[in-house]
């Protein structure tokens, strides 16, 4: 072990991106990626709490087997709207639009994204999509499930399907523009010396995510248009009574919506790579494997949509191919988990809040990923599809994975973003409470699911009550755990301890400028002469994993 020599940025000037300009107009018309990230942060937090409120209503209803708290029609709207808000207006934009927006330019040494105006436009598009969706919710709501399955959505539902669909349609463009901006920025605006293989893995993850956003989102846009077209003008596309094919909708829908799962989880994996490396002061084990596994996930992710259709009368041979590919897509995720774990070997691990979130992520994501294998496995999926097992599985990925990564990242970069420290003790406490609450909420659902409890049930047979009581208890703890960071983050913006430029003593580019950064990010354009996560000089590198006499070199 050698003592740290970390880069000390110059004495911060009083001017930074937050106080460089004042007034509402300076925020609403800003082209600064950092300010836009904050605009996004505020908006997605707003939607997160609406979605959370719906989750609370779901858990309250399911406390007892009878449908006694809400009416069936209301309950159906509540779970639909929980899904729509959480997926399209929180999870998909969560990390890319906030942390990604803030950090992609900073981590590669750029002054801003390639298209600052388009970046602002994407936020306005997101807002417009949000307003249209909220209109749909207030006007009467939507009850199709977030999956909008036909012909229920096109012919039978008496709710605001087209308005909700329009909101998602509009919102999709904000996603496409963000992806476009990231790809161009990463290709063209890297600082001198910042080669592809010197990029932090957060950037690789965002690159892979952006590819999915650009290639996948247009498909959901088309699908929603076709749905609206059939609903409004009664032209047969999906409804068999009009000559359409209802299963076609499911193919189109999942062609986007399965890759969308990777839009949610890949950025989070990028955050975890940062946290694991930086809080153990170690280069990531198998950097290139972790980087390429992100790309592999993005590519394979487009080929597995059919595993959502194993029980729809899809051909058994198609089912077998989709099952095989679904198992294949699990491998890059497994590679990441093994490499993160190996990174910790002989490292120097701190127990700061972001690291606790990262460690929690690895455990929860392992369970989430492994239970995905149950659903990729044809015969077991036949029994499990549309049960609570599926609900538990995707919450392990989206909350245990995506949300834990988001919260970990938010804590990690909070000093950089706001120039203030959050209270460390409360931070660790919240990580613990969220971890416990989360597991208590969703572990029982795996058992309930295998026992046969179908999802989207307003009332259920009494033998499932014990699992639902546990879930509701867990959800209360989880909800409480979420409130803690919400409170102390807001508190810290005014009262938190002032953060140093490099409070964690790290080599990454974003830490080589003041906190909060100046509008142009860096006083002088940095020149990169080091590898990613280079805490110590390369000549000290130790080689492990020798099984034979020969030494290996990477």
């Amino acid at each position: 072990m050698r003592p740290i020599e970390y880069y000390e940025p110059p004495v911060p000037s009083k001017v930074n991106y937050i106080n460089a300009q004042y007034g509402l107009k300076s925020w609403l018309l800003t082209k600064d990626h950092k300010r836009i990230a904050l605009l996004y942060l505020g908006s997605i937090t707003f939607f997160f709490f609406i979605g959370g409120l719906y989750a609370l209503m779901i858990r309250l209803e399911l406390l007892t087997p009878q449908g006694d708290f809400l009416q069936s029609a209301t309950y159906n709207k509540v779970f639909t709207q929980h899904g729509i808000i959480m997926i399209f207006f929180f999870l998909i934009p969560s990390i890319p639009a906030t942390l990604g927006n803030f950090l992609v330019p900073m981590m590669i040494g750029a002054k801003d994204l390639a298209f600052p105006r388009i970046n602002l436009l994407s936020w306005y598009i997101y807002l417009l999509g949000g307003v249209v969706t909220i209109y749909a919710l207030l006007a009467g709501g939507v009850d199709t499930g977030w999956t909008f399955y036909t012909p229920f959505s096109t012919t039978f539902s008496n709710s605001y399907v087209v308005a909700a669909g329009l909101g998602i349609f509009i919102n999709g463009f904000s996603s496409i523009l963000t992806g476009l901006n990231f790809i161009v920025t990463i290709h063209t605006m890297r600082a001198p010396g910042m080669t592809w293989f010197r990029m932090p893995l957060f950037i690789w993850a965002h690159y892979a995510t952006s590819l999915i956003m650009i290639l996948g989102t247009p498909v959901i846009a088309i699908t929603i248009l076709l749905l609206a077209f059939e609903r409004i003008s009664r032209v047969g596309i999906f409804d068999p009574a009009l000559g359409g094919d209802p299963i076609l909708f499911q193919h189109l829908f999942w062609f986007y919506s399965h890759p969308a799962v990777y839009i949610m989880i890949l950025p989070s994996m990028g955050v975890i790579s940062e946290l694991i490396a930086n809080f153990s002061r170690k280069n990531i084990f198998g950097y290139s494997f972790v980087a390429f596994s992100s790309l592999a996930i993005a590519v394979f992710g487009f080929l597995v949509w059919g595993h959502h259709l194993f029980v729809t009368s899809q051909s058994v041979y198609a089912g077998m191919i989709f099952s095989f590919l679904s198992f294949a897509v699990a491998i890059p995720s497994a590679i990441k988990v093994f490499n993160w774990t190996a990174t910790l070997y002989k490292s120097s691990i701190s127990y700061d809040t972001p690291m606790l979130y990262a460690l929690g992520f690895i455990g929860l994501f392992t369970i989430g990923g492994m239970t995905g294998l149950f659903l990729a496995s044809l015969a077991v999926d036949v029994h499990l599809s549309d049960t609570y097992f599926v609900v538990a599985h995707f919450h392990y990925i989206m909350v245990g994975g995506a949300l834990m990564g988001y919260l970990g990242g938010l804590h990690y970069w909070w000093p950089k973003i706001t120039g203030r420290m959050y209270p460390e003790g409360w931070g660790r406490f919240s990580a613990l409470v969220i971890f416990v609450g989360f597991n208590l909420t969703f572990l029982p659902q795996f058992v309930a699911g295998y026992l046969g409890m179908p999802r989207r049930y307003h009332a259920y047979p009494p033998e499932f009550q014990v699992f639902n009581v546990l879930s509701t208890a867990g959800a209360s703890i989880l909800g409480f755990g979420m409130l803690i960071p919400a409170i102390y983050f807001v508190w810290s913006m005014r009262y938190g301890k002032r953060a140093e430029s490099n409070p964690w003593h790290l080599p990454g580019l974003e830490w080589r400028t003041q906190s909060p950064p100046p509008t142009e990010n860096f006083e002088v354009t940095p020149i990169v002469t080091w590898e990613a996560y280079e805490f110590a000089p390369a000549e000290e590198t130790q080689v492990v994993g020798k099984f034979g006499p020969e030494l290996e070199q990477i």
Partner: protein
Amino acid sequence: MQSWIPLVPDSASTFSWKVDALYFYLSGVTLFFTLLISAVLIFFVIRYRRRTPYEIPRPIAGSHKLETLWTIIPFVIAMTMFGWGARIYFEQYKPPSNAIEVYVVGKQWMWKLQHATGQREINQLHVPVGRKIKLIMTSEDVIHDFFVPAFRTKADVVPGKYTTLWFEATTPGTYHLFCAEYCGMNHSGMIGSIIVMEPREFDNWLSGNTGNTTPAAAGQQLYQTLGCASCHGANGEGGRGPTLAGVFGKTTQLQTGESVRVDEKYIRESILNPQAQIVAGFGPIMPTFQGQVSEDQLVQIVAFIKSLPAGGQTQTPAPATSPTPNVK
């Protein structure tokens, strides 16, 4: 509520233990890897905790051997899961030819079922132990899903087509029937029960429900009233329209030169949309019956056509009346 928490639902079909075995294998592997990762993680986190604030560990180069190892091992394990799951799936969705058929029509929010012998049931299905049962299912409105957890099987019930589900019950008892595909307001009320009986009891139950017209007999009546006979012949021997007798399950040549297997779906389509696939040698003269026949009636007509023996001899499907009406 039970005093203990079960890990698997009731097992009542030949699939149950097969799916459970695979489930336990998957659970075992999941448990093993979750515990392994957690244990290694916890060990590292304690063993390599930061001891002094400014220490820097030596960097470690990656290892191609390790990467290969932890790519190949998970892949091999995943392939065993894939192969095992695919084998059972193949069995689940390839119905045997010698099964007893039951017709199922789903609608918001109820299950309508009819046995080949004519007995109708709503939200209930009586089946005997040890006989293969094949459900031929369709929906009047939206997509539903016929799910029997105790049988470890389910299949979507899709409007506009027939889907099938088969099982062989092993243990008498009453089991849940759920609709597993969200179908609107009262989705969670679209439930029922599967009553599995000893074959003897089942025969008693069947004979206790007397006076039912079999689907095939009802279909024959519809065949007459809808005027099918004027073109397809009184016994399906054909005429201006193609022969119906004995064609079920066979392959027939189409006008376009393609050939098609005559199954439930093809017959249904030919009634609702006759121009779609015309048999070679015939003109597009048949009118559509869309809107004139319900899904229940379509099922009956299909059952009638299936019952016609080759050659078009006169054959009247007998109504299922009980020879011994006093058993129950």
